[in-house]
C-alpha cells in the first residue's frame, strides 16, 4: 500500500493575476474559490453571497490564476450545455493545474468524447446500478449498525468518508485497505494545496500521478478478464471498434475513482447536517417510502458540491463581455440550485417542489455518469439510517467546518440520538 502524502497548510497570502485587457473594471470581484469569504458560515451560504441582485451574470476574479465566474443558474446551465463555445479542454482551476489533469473522458469534447462516454454509461446504467443495490445497502447497514447502539457518531469520518468509498471499492473489486490513500489522492485533486497556481498545480499533479500509478497494475491484470466488476468492464471496452488503449483506460479508471471517492462523501455530510437540524423534515421522510425516494433529487438541488470550469473555445461576445479563446469560466453549481429565479424559496427543502432546476450533476455531454449510483446511495443511506436511528440531532456545541474547492467539503458533524428506550 502506498504512503499517504502529507497535507500542505494554506497561508493568508494568495497569488493574484493581473487584470487582462478584455476584463472591464465593473466585472472584477475578489472571489477565491478555495477560500470563499464567509465559508465559516457554510459553503452554500458563502457562494450565495456572490449572487446578489445586480451581480453581473459573468464576473472575473484575480485569484486562482484569474478566471471568470458564472453567477446564476441560467448561465451555468447554458455554458455546460454548449461544448462548441465552452470546451472541456481544461476543467479544473487554477488552469495550470487543470492542464496537468488527464482523466478520461472529462477533458474531451464531442465527438472524441462520445465512445468513451458510452463505455462509462454501459457500466453505470440504471439497470446495472439496480443490480448492485443489495451490495450498497449491506455497506450502509454494516456501518450504521456499528454505531447505532452508541447513541452518537461523527458523521463525516464514521459514515460519509467511508460509505461511498466502500461502495466504490466493492463495485470495482478493490481491497478496502487501499481506501485511505485513494481518498487522499482524490482530495489533492479536488482541493489542491498551495498558495500559488504553480504550487497548487504541483499538488494536484502529485495526486493525479498517485492515482494513475495505483491503477496501472490493476488495469494490466484485468485486461482480457471476464469479471463483472466496474474496472474489468471498462478496461475491456471497445472504442470505435478497437480495445481501449492502456493510457485511455488509465484515465478512465482514475476518473471513476476520483468521482466515486469525493463527491458523494461531501454531499452526504451536507445533507445529514441539514437533517440533524430539521427533525420535522426527518419525520416527513420517515413516514413515506415513496416520498423519501423522491426526496433525493431535492437534496441534490439544495446541496450542490461541485465547481468545475469550462474553457472559452473561441473569441466571442457573451453576457456583455468579450471572452478570449483560452479564458476560463468557473461554474459554481451552488449558484444554480440556490438561484431564486430557478427555484423559488431555494433554501427550503420542499418535497412538493415542481419544475425543479439544478446542475448538481453538471449538464450537457459530460453530465455525471454516476448519477444513478449517487441517487441510489442517498436513498439507501436515508432508508437504513431512519430504520435504525429514527430521531437524531446535532450534538450541543457542534461546530461543523466547511471547505470550498472543486468539490466542497464539510467535516465535524457530531450527531446524537436516544438509545435503549431512554429519552435523549
Amino acid at each position, binding site marked *: 500500500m502506498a504512503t499517504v502524502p502529507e497535507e500542505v497548510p494554506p497561508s493568508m497570502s494568495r497569488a493574484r493575476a493581473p487584470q487582462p485587457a478584455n476584463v472591464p473594471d465593473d466585472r472584477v470581484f475578489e472571489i477565491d474559490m478555495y477560500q470563499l469569504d464567509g465559508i465559516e458560515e457554510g459553503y452554500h451560504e458563502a457562494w450565495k453571497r456572490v449572487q446578489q441582485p445586480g451581480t453581473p451574470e459573468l464576473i472575473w476574479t484575480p485569484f486562482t490564476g484569474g478566471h471568470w465566474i458564472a453567477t446564476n443558474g441560467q448561465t451555468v446551465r447554458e455554458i455546460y450545455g454548449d461544448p462548441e463555445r465552452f470546451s472541456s479542454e481544461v476543467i479544473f482551476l487554477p488552469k495550470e493545474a487543470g492542464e496537468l489533469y488527464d482523466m478520461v473522458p472529462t477533458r474531451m469534447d464531442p465527438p472524441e468524447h462520445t465512445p468513451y462516454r458510452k463505455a462509462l454509461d454501459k457500466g453505470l446504467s440504471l439497470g446495472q446500478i439496480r443490480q448492485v443495490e443489495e451490495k450498497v445497502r449491506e455497506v450502509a447497514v454494516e456501518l450504521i449498525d456499528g454505531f447505532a447502539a452508541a447513541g452518537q457518531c461523527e458523521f463525516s469520518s464514521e459514515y460519509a468518508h467511508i460509505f461511498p468509498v466502500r461502495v466504490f471499492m466493492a463495485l470495482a473489486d478493490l481491497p478496502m485497505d487501499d481506501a485511505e490513500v485513494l481518498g487522499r489522492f482524490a482530495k489533492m485533486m479536488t482541493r489542491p494545496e498551495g498558495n500559488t497556481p504553480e504550487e497548487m498545480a504541483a499538488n494536484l499533479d502529485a495526486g493525479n500521478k498517485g492515482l494513475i500509478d495505483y491503477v496501472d497494475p490493476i488495469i494490466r491484470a484485468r485486461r482480457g478478464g471476464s469479471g463483472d466488476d466496474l474496472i474489468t468492464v471498462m478496461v475491456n471496452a471497445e472504442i470505435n471498434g478497437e480495445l481501449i488503449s492502456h493510457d485511455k483506460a488509465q484515465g478512465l479508471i482514475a476518473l471513476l475513482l476520483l468521482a466515486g471517492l469525493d463527491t458523494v462523501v461531501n454531499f452526504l455530510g451536507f445533507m445529514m447536517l441539514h437533517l440533524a437540524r430539521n427533525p420535522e423534515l426527518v419525520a416527513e421522510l420517515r413516514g413515506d417510502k415513496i416520498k423519501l425516494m423522491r426526496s433525493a433529487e431535492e437534496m441534490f438541488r439544495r446541496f450542490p458540491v461541485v465547481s468545475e470550469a469550462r474553457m472559452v473555445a473561441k473569441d466571442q461576445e457573451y453576457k456583455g463581455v468579450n471572452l478570449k479563446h483560452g479564458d476560463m469560466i468557473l461554474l459554481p453549481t451552488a449558484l444554480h440550485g440556490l438561484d431564486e429565479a430557478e427555484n423559488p424559496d431555494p433554501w427550503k427543502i420542499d418535497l412538493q417542489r415542481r*419544475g425543479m432546476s439544478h446542475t448538481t450533476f453538471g449538464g450537457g455531454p459530460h453530465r455525471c455518469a454516476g448519477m444513478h449510483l449517487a441517487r441510489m446511495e442517498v436513498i439507501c443511506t436515508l432508508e437504513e439510517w431512519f430504520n435504525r436511528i429514527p430521531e437524531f440531532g446535532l450534538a450541543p456545541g457542534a461546530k461543523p467546518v466547511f471547505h470550498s474547492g472543486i468539490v466542497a467539503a464539510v467535516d465535524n458533524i457530531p450527531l446524537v440520538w436516544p438509545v435503549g428506550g431512554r429519552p435523549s
Partner: protein
Amino acid sequence: MTAITVTTREGVEHELRPQDGISVMEAIRESGIDELLALCGGCCSCATCHVFVDRDPVGQLPPMSADEDDLLESSSSRTDRSRLSCQLPVSAALDGLRITIAPED
C-alpha cells in the same frame, strides 16, 4: 379536458383527464399510479418515468432532447416508441394519447 390512457405493467388501463401544463409524468403520479417512480421529479436525470407511446394522436409530441435520448439509451427496454413522460407536457393536442409504462430496468 385532455384524455390520456395509461396502461400499467400489469396491463390495467387507466383513463386520466389531467390539467394542461403539467407533464404526463406528473399526471400519472398524481393519479396514484405508484409504479412510475419518476425519482428525479422531472429534471430529466433518472429515466424512471419511461413509457411507450402506443398512439400519438397528432404526431406532435415535442422532439427528444439529447439528455432524454442519452437516458433512454441506458435502458434495456428502449424501443422506437420510448419517451420519458416528464418531457411530455399535457395539452389539448395530446387528446387521445395512449401510453404504456415501460418495464423497470
